[in-house]
């Protein structure tokens, strides 16, 4: 059994009493204490067009389990971003219900993944940008 841990630390001074959240989790199989044992490995992909691209194909994974997806925009730009959407192929937009959100330079996300629909990204610019991503799967 593999042991994979992920720790998040959030710090904020939005409120007068600063917020600090520190939480560690071990990635387990669905309804189990057995650790996830498979991964796609860490992938890196460069983009230079606004075309939407599927980065995670749902049919590579078992549906309705406890997979996790990590995605990070490795750039530094706070003007350019990637839309991230759960959709088979459609380009994302601010008004699309399937759009989860946007990753600007340096932004990262770690979510559970149902593997029911592809994960698609769409760059906001034709300027070169790079994503790194990894699926932890059951």
């Amino acid at each position: 059994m593999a042991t994979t841990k992920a720790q998040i630390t959030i710090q904020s001074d939005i409120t007068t009493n600063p917020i600090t959240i520190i939480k560690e989790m071990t990635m387990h199989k669905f309804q189990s204490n057995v650790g996830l044992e498979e991964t796609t490995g860490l992938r890196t992909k460069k983009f230079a067009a606004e075309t939407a691209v599927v980065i995670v194909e749902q049919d590579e994974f078992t549906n309705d389990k406890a997979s996790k997806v990590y995605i990070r925009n490795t750039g530094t730009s706070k003007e350019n971003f990637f839309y991230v959407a759960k959709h088979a192929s459609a380009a994302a937009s601010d008004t699309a219900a399937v759009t989860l959100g946007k990753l600007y330079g340096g932004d990262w996300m770690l979510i559970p993944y149902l593997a029911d629909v592809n994960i698609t990204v769409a760059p906001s610019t034709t300027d070169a940008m790079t994503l790194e991503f990894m699926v932890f799967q059951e």
Partner: protein
Amino acid sequence: MATTTATVSITSADLTPGMALGISADTTLYQTGTTTGLELVDVGAGRLTQASGADSLQEALGTADTSNWIYICNNSTDVEQYMKIGIHDTVIGNLGSGEWLWMPWNMGTADNEINIEAEASGTIPYEYAIFKSTFTLPAKT
């Protein structure tokens, strides 16, 4: 200006044999397209029961082009208890006991509420923090 940072560390000595995994990343949260920090936050905790079905944790404002972030943690210690997390009709995934998520949240359409649902019997304690960029609070109803 407020400063909010989010850091992650993902490690494993044995997921990929012969090659230890070590990922670390940190980011500062800004309002869309700027280097101005987010200014609104909702922090809370609650308890979910399966009988309640899917509940809206936070309604979307329908404000396009904003930057918003969500942290949710399932604080249950019972491995049978998990939470389904969704944005409107899009189910993101199953959040198992002791697990957390961190993701951007698109509020571009007012339908895009964050919803949570308890699965398996019993009560699931959870906590959340939602960081938002907009200065506009929802209108009085």
